């Protein structure tokens, strides 16, 4: 307990009128808020809700440890946090199962390509799949709020790019897009590079580097 008090002190070097509640109390607060919300709650949102001087990040991390191995757990989604049931208990929850529209193979692949190559243009998706992407596919993924428009690519035509959303991360239980399964291996194998076809004419090379920094800006 004295540990906790110290950390509160650090945040609030005694100058504020009301002292922040002890960390244990902050943890209770975070617990109540996360339990109360179906969507992930951002640290900023927690800060706004909790009394002045609180450290929601420390509290949420402590809460996360507390719930380790329990029937529900505290999970991170981007810079937000949520409580979700433990996946191994899914079998108990059949009543709660939501029937999701079955995604077509094209939609699943398109989603994966966007997730692993983001930000990713439609042309790149088509290049990888070797077929054109139907409008319905992108539309469906946008509607499901799994992908959204990213910033435009600074190449001729300034094409829009697609990126995955926090909703996507939440749905698949990912902390961030970096945690996509096998991402590192794929990158190491060079399979996430955009490598243009060697042109018979010979005008190539330029576009190769562009894609490398993919996940960099997110950090």
């Amino acid at each position, binding site marked *: 307990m004295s540990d906790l008090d110290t950390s509160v002190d650090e945040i609030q070097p005694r100058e504020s009128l009301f002292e922040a509640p002890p960390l244990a109390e902050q943890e209770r607060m975070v617990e109540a808020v996360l339990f109360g919300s179906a969507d992930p709650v951002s640290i900023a949102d927690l800060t706004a809700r909790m009394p002045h001087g609180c450290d929601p990040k420390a509290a949420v991390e402590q809460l996360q440890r507390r719930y380790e191995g329990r029937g529900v757990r505290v999970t991170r989604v981007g810079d937000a946090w949520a409580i979700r049931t433990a996946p191994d208990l899914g079998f108990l929850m059949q009543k*709660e199962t939501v029937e999701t529209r079955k995604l077509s*193979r094209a939609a699943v692949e398109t989603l994966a390509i966007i997730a692993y190559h983001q930000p990713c243009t439609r042309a790149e998706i088509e290049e990888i799949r070797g*077929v054109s992407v139907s409008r319905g596919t992108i539309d469906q993924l946008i509607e499901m709020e799994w992908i959204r428009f990213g910033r435009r690519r600074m190449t001729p035509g300034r094409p829009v790019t697609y990126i995955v959303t926090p909703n996507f991360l939440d749905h698949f239980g990912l902390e961030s897009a970096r945690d996509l*399964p096998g991402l590192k291996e794929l990158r190491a194998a060079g399979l996430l590079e955009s490598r243009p*076809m060697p042109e018979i004419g010979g005008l190539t090379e330029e576009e190769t580097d562009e894609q490398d920094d993919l996940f960099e800006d997110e950090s």
Partner: protein
Amino acid sequence: MTQDDEQFELTGVISVEERLAAEALIVDVDGFEGPLDLLLTLSRTQKVDLRTISILQLSYQYLAFVEKAKELRIELAADYLVMAAWLAFLKSRLLLPPDPTDEGPSGADLAAHLAFQLERLAAMRDAAAQLMGRDQKGRNFFVRGVPETMERVRNVTYTASLLDLMQGYARIRTKDEFRPFVLDRKSILSMEQALERMRGLITFAGDWTDLSSYLPEGWELDPKKRRSATAATFAASLELAKAGKIELRQGGTFAPIQIRSVNNR
């Protein structure tokens, strides 16, 4: 791409087994998502790692597939044929000794790129499968069943999603494209216009008058306009007759149609 002699010989003739496999594929041609997908499936028959696959052999397999489809008179989509042409080109590059004066990429470069594409597609397939195999919200793990009912008293926040915004904009910018009831074309007279015109004129038509005299001025000169105006005026006259405003008569087949106002009789 390596192409040692062994593979070279192997690929010269296509085994019965491969032919059968190719035929089985054809039956299912609708199930493929494009030439790359087909190539990937064909490559599986080589039973080697994609990195060591023989692109030359794969080209033979693909071309055999396309041939077979032709024999069976199956219409292949254009992109399958484009790929076939490209593979035929690639095949010749791989088989012929490199021409030192040729500056373009070598056959090996092109083959390597195709191998890369196949490997990348396969990798994305795996990734997609892994992704979908993950625990999913609403299927394996669940959110709070009773999210706290937040008292909705404080300030009202108006919100809109990016989708709303874009759809709103698209709606405005394409508004002009959807005017199904407006006829912009100059040489069309609508029935409403003709009716309007006739209503004005009909009171003066005490005696039987040719319908053609009701065409708007100048419209009888241009055949296109005349046709439209005649049809519209005729339709309008039927409308007026139905309303009891005029009478119609015609002396015989193809004789001029005449009208007169009912009030003046």
